[in-house]
């Protein structure tokens, strides 16, 4: 367990932290003094409001743990997306292979019918010709459908880019000032301004860098415009 986790868990605070808190909030600092507190945490038992210093400290612990959970889950989601991408790619490759075989067979069938047809149009030959025509007619629809892989891959890339930024965002916004010599962290106006500026920068990055490029909801053919 890290020092901060131990401190937060046991309720012990470094003297520098108490001193700094005292300068800002004298009453709270007095309550932060471990010697002045009941080890059984009476505030929790009686339902009284938690002292502000303790609240801040526990919030910091909460924030650290939220960061850990998010970080771990981002990794899991990224791995799942990678797996999905590999499955899609494999499926598309196999379907493309099948497409090649079917179109080649269809073309061969058509040319064979033409060769053996001659003047003798038997019922069987007519039927085979119909089958060949049906096979050719479905080719267009197959070509249109096989484009799902390209769109799905782009959507996955979009989600992936968002995840990368969100993982950075989580780290930047939850592990705030980890090297600060004061627990709980007390911020100066400039530090808070910088945090808000960082939040704004992330909002922009999420809105601009991860622009969604796939809006299709089906595999209906798209618009055409000639300039």
């Amino acid at each position, binding site marked *: 367990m890290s020092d901060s986790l131990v401190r937060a868990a046991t309720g012990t605070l470094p003297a520098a932290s108490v001193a700094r808190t005292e300068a800002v909030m004298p009453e709270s600092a007095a309550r932060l003094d471990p010697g002045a507190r009941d080890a059984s945490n009476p505030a929790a038992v009686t339902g009284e409001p938690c002292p502000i210093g303790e609240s801040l400290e526990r919030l910091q612990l909460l924030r650290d743990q939220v960061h850990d959970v998010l970080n771990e889950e981002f990794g899991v989601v990224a791995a799942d997306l990678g797996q999905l991408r590999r499955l899609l790619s494999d499926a*598309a*490759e196999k379907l*493309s292979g099948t*497409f*090649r075989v079917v*179109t080649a067979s269809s073309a061969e069938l058509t040319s064979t019918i033409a060769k053996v047809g001659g003047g003798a149009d038997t019922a069987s030959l007519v039927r085979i010709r119909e089958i060949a025509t049906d096979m050719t007619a479905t*080719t*267009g629809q197959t*070509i*249109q*459908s*096989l*484009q*799902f*892989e*390209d*769109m799905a*891959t*782009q959507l996955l890339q979009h989600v992936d880019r968002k995840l990368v930024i969100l993982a950075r965002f989580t780290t930047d916004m939850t592990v705030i000032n980890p090297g600060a010599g004061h627990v709980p962290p007390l911020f100066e106006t400039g530090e808070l301004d910088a945090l808000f500026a960082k939040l704004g920068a992330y909002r922009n990055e999420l809105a601009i860098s991860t622009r969604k*490029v*796939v*809006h*299709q909801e089906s*595999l*209906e*053919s*798209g*618009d*055409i*415009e*000639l*300039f």
Partner: protein
Amino acid sequence: MSKTALVVDDSATMREMVSYTLKQAGFEPLTGGNGQEALDKLTGQQMDLIITDLNMPVMDGLSFIKAVRARDEYKFVPILMLTTESQADMKAQGKAAGATGWLVKPFNPEMLLQVIGKVVPK
């Protein structure tokens, strides 16, 4: 003599589907996985049609079209943008870069061939 077309897309499936469609219309397709790769294939090559994606690694479709249009021998080659993007501002950028037309994926082979019939001289 068959006409030559260049198909540029980072998706192997898309390159294959477009190439197949073009072959049905008598084109001989060349392919590139991104703009830079396609530019390398263009050098000294007679080209009757270019179909390119927009979002690709290394060099995207807009940069590719600008680079193609900067070469005198390809100034008037029809270039169709085939992309998932359908926003008006992106189309405007494509037009400004020198695209001849804009097709939103997925494409229908028959419709693609109709468009090609309109932009490629007989």
